């Protein structure tokens, strides 16, 4: 067991776990932050997406020992993020969610996309969101919501 000092959503955290423990387990089991979901455990579905050092990251395959001093941002912080807030609003207004299980990962990837590519094309969206799977098939509404959020951000709607 090793002790790791982490910064999660701007807050300092300390956990004592096996070095090989995936970040997802640290978030959910140690820190009780259950907004980030376990889907496949092999980085195949995107439900566990968080931002690690500003990069959309599949937390189920990243051992805590490799996190280092990079800040971790999870779905719990998106309401306070200028882009995250707009994306969540778009998700609600377009009624994107069906069962909702994958949606925290979808939103984290969408926010990462919009922060790099504020006006994404259909191809940008398909490629960037390609690692996030939705068993309910809400892909069309996800794309519409990303475009709506992009439009909102373009019009200066980020709060």
């Amino acid at each position, binding site marked *: 067991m090793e002790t790791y000092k982490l910064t999660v959503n701007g807050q300092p955290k300390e956990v004592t776990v*096996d*070095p*090989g*423990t*995936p970040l997802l387990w640290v978030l959910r089991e140690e820190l009780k932050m259950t907004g980030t979901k376990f889907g496949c455990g*092999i*980085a*195949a579905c*995107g439900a566990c*997406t968080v931002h690690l050092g500003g*990069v*959309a*990251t*599949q937390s*189920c*395959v*990243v*051992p805590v020992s*490799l996190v*280092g001093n990079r800040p971790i941002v999870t779905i719990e912080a998106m309401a306070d993020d200028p882009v995250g807030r707009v994306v969540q609003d778009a998700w609600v207004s377009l009624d994107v969610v069906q069962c909702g299980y994958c949606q925290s990962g979808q939103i984290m*990837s*969408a926010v*990462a*996309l919009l*922060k*790099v*590519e504020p006006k994404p094309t259909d191809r*940008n969206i398909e*490629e*960037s*969101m*390609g*690692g*996030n799977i939705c068993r309910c098939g809400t892909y069309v509404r996800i794309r519409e919501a990303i475009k709506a959020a992009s439009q909102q951000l373009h019009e200066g709607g980020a709060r």
Partner: protein
Amino acid sequence: MRSRNAVARAVFVILVVSLTWSVWIFARTVRQDSAQRSNAGASNRTEGLAAWQQIYSVLISPRCINCHTATSFPQQGDDRHRHFANVVRGPEDRGVPALQCITCHQEANANSTGVPGAHDWHLAPLSMKWQDLNGNILSSAAVCSDVTDRSKNHNLDGAGLLKHHTVEPLVLWAFQPGLNIDGTPRSLPPLTHEELVAATRKWVEAGTPCLQTH
């Protein structure tokens, strides 16, 4: 007087014979040196080409060629299947904004989760593709031609290629590729890293020879 002329004639003949003999000896020596140099050059090239074949055997192993694709996506596994999770190359060979290579591949191997990692994980540029669009591996001559083409290889000369094989993190990773998700070790290239570097040094010293492409 007559005897003095005879002596002079004899001296002249001896001088001419000596000169002719010297010229013949010199010419023969030059011919031998030239032949030896030519043989040495051919031997050097032969050894260089043999060293290249060793290098090629590493380059086309799955640990290397899986990220030297001609397609918009990398491969994975010893069977070189398409990378899962809809991963794509992206404009800078490092994926796309929300699905970068470093979305999963960290600075080091993640043996507890089976994800390989090394600094700046990325695909080789399309100019360094070592297979065709159908995944068929290019010939030794074709790969050698591309590897030595400075318009395609980030302007690396022989010394640069040797350094690349010696210290580049992704090259080093190929020889310490970590564990698969089932805990078994990933397969290794056919040479050790030390053997690759030694072969590269020999190939570079021979002038980076390549077989002719057809």
